[in-house]
């Protein structure tokens, strides 16, 4: 098996080299580099993921206009895993073995990523994952271009604590892995900062929850003690709209009890009645409203591509923008799309992000990003009220959970491990 794979690799290398030498002369199936796009185009997640599919098509289109990659044209292979987690794994296998894609850009929910992970590791391919997530993972084959908890949740809490002087905390989330892990990290972090357990309220609700009356009433009671209270929300998707509506109806304004959300971006706001949301906060690594020439160009390009001047850009789109361009740079550096070579070449690659900084791929397969906190305006955009003065390096394993504190991820020699215990000096081999 290994021999076979090596032979394949040599063949691919040879093909790449020869095509380089021959220029665009060889006209056969090997003429294009295939890029897999694994985003749900139907089902519940289609709302968010369809946009990312279009973003990828736009980026690939643009790269082709610039002359492609390694002298070949790029070709997008789009599949629809239909918001069905096991289907993500099947489609990933199909992309790698049948379509022979050079890399995959995809997934949104953590559970879909976890489903793809074994396949991508077994077949040794590459996945770029563009969404903010709960951390506690670093795979040799996955590059995490979204925010790790220390690039979103922790700075958000710092902002509330230092700038808004918040003393009481409501951690509200949807009941699944991302909110649960994030809240576990946040709870440990708050306690380490001297917040008493009585001043923390944790609440979980099912997906698509719409009856928020009693939970919002509880939050109101919790926040009426005179101490400044804030809600840290990891509530996902649809459930946010009735949540904010109920907050507005029960008279909880952003000035009294601000809500900081990690999953509400421009795209989500565009389908909402924003009246009850004005003044509430969100923490991201990118806002459409950030005023840089690069961002303005990107927004214009997106509107032109999608042929709709009202469409918005958001954080995961920027993540794909950075991730795709980093991959392009790494492939050019390695001179091949071979996964092993690209995995090695991409570490340390830098590419300017849209908010004016230079993001870098780190040895733990996460990237450095700025953290921005914005207030929601009535036009569905954010006004940045706070931002980190330099980029923050993504941390795969949280320093605030006792179990993962001694663990680091480093995919460069000599460690080459996604789960390396600095105390026992051992690599567990389990990357997730």
């Amino acid at each position: 098996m290994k021999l076979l794979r090596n032979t394949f690799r040599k063949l691919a290398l040879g093909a790449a080299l020869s095509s380089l030498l021959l220029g665009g002369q060889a006209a056969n199936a090997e003429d294009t580099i295939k890029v897999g796009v694994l985003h749900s185009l139907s089902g519940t997640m289609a709302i968010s993921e369809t946009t990312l599919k279009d973003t990828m098509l736009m980026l690939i289109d643009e790269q082709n206009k610039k002359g492609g990659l390694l002298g070949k044209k790029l070709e997008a292979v789009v599949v629809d895993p239909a918001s069905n987690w096991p289907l993500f794994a099947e489609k990933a296998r199909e992309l790698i073995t049948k379509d022979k894609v050079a890399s995959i850009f995809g997934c949104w929910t953590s559970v879909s990523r976890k489903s793809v992970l074994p396949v991508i590791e077994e077949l040794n391919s590459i996945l770029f994952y563009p969404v903010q997530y709960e951390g506690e993972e670093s795979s040799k084959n996955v590059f995490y271009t979204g925010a790790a908890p220390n690039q979103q949740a922790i700075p958000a809490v710092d902002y509330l604590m230092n700038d808004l002087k918040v003393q009481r905390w409501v951690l509200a989330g949807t009941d699944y892995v991302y909110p649960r892990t994030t809240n576990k990290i946040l709870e440990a972090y708050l306690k380490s900062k001297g917040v008493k357990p009585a001043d923390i309220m944790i609440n979980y609700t099912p997906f698509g929850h719409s009856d928020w009356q009693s939970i919002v009433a509880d939050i109101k009671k919790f926040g009426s003690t005179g101490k400044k209270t804030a809600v840290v929300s990891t509530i996902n998707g649809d459930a946010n709209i009735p949540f904010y509506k109920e907050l507005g109806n029960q008279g909880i304004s952003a000035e009294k009890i601000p809500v900081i959300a990690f999953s509400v971006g421009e795209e989500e706001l565009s389908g909402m009645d924003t009246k009850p949301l004005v003044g509430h906060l969100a923490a991201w690594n990118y806002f459409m409203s950030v005023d840089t020439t690069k961002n303005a160009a990107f927004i214009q390009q997106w509107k032109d591509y999608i042929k709709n001047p009202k469409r918005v850009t958001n954080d995961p789109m920027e993540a794909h923008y950075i991730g795709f361009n980093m991959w392009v740079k790494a492939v050019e550096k390695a001179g091949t799309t071979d996964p092993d070579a690209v995995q090695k070449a991409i570490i340390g690659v830098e590419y300017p992000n849209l908010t004016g900084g230079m993001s870098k791929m780190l040895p733990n397969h996460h990237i450095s990003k700025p953290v921005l906190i914005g207030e929601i305006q009535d036009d569905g955009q954010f006004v940045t009220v706070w931002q980190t003065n330099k980029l923050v390096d993504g941390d795969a394993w949280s320093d605030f959970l006792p179990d993962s504190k001694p663990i680091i991820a480093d995919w460069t020699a000599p460690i080459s491990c996604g789960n390396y215990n600095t105390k026992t000096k051992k690599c567990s081999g389990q990357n997730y």
Partner: protein
Amino acid sequence: MMTTTSTQAGIRAGGVFKRLPKLAGCLLAMIFLAAQPALAQDAGSALEQLRTGSMAEREQAIETLGSDSNNLKLLQTLQDGKLFDFKAEGKLVFAQENATGYQLSDPLSGAVLAEVERGAVGKISLNNKLRGVLRKTIAQLQLNDTDPVLRLIAVQALANDIDDKAVILLRDHLASETDAEIKTAINKMLLLQDINSPEKDQRIAAIAALKDLDSQDVVNKLQALIEKDGDGNFLEADSDVRNLAEAALIKIRDRMQAYAALETVFFGLSLGAVLVLSAIGLAITFGVMGVINMAHGELMMLGAYTTYVMQQIMPNYLGTALILSIPMAFLVAALVGIAIERGIIRFLYGRPLETLLATFGVSLFLQQAVRSIFSPLNRSVSTPEWMSGSWQINDFLSLTWNRFYILIFCLLVFTALLQILKRTKLGLEVRAVAQNRGMARAMGIPTARVDAMTFGLGSGIAGVAGVALSQITNVGPNLGQAYIVDSFMVVVFGGVGNLFGTLVAGFSLGIANKVLEPYAGAVLAKILVLVFIILFIQKKPRGLFPQKGRAAES
């Protein structure tokens, strides 16, 4: 364009701002003074700061502008988000959106200026801190308004975020105030301050006067009196005051508990109303006709989308659009329902499994149709003004308007349906066919037509329920799926074929859910209710109110 003199004024103003804290005390006096030339110059630079400055500079500018009551309109424009920066001329303007762009006018004089495109003006943005400052500044200016309603709002705004300056301001205002309600509000606020007074008598008097008020502020103040500091000493040294505070707190807490119970009942009833609304149509199609209609949820979804379309047609009359949506949604859903019945279900009577599968297919078809027509994204349905906010009875009890209206709406729909079944010819025929189909046909009732009408009626009511749902949940292709299980649950629990059973079951499940929720959490509460129903159905398979008689037994 900035002239040299105004630049100098800007520099001078900068000096003034550094001394602002000291000046703050004088602010009160300033309000009563007529605008002086020097002030007017400050205002000019403040406007410039408001236009181009950072958030911190804007805050200073608002405070400067707040010293002159002539600026009230400008500040209100800013608060409403209508103040824009006219980039080409470098000045602040009031902008009213129209079809092509913005109609500009002067924010102070109201004089009509140019009409510009969208990109020509930039909105002056605010953050939470600025909004707070702005509200307070406006309140200070409005305290002398002739309209008592505005004065009351001003007093409440000042009392919400009280500081020494506001206390002095309100104390002075009390002497000249004539409105009784405003006087009470100010007095309450001043009494709250008296709890921290250095005089023991004043503290005791304040507690005595406040102990009958249902106010969260009072609770917090009293609670602070009986708390201990880090060394275990009481913060309030005097034990008399402490005991009084404690006794008052116990009483208030008792009242709070009663209000909390009331609130839970209301929450339960309003959740129940949603359940009843979504189940009541099913109670007819499933309960009376015996058709397992898996597309029932999608009929509700159609009702919700009808509301969306109506609001798109008349965007300036949201409330009217919502009310008009009720008959429209009934019509749309009823027509689709009749089409489903005539096209599919009538071939499948007596074959429940096939009906279930066929209607499930219909539900997928409807979902995808909506996805293709309206996009898979959720649509935003606005809530009219009179349905937002809450009915604030006191600090511990407030009922949200949207839920309140839905509760009433649910009861209205239920009564109307009951009347239709009891008093109309269609109702009579429906009941006759439900009781004994063969006999009804023998008596000359066109059962096929009655079946179609009954199914249309049930579907139409599902559409009406969709209008109500559009006000509290997301309008998207998946809306129906979220409610279909609950609907079946309510109908089965209440007793198939019994409308009253559906009503009682909906309300009791709603209340049970809300009583459990604080202890068990939203997820577990739902599971517990489901487990209860499973056990209940084991014991009484025909639900709460089973139909009796020979026809029902078979």
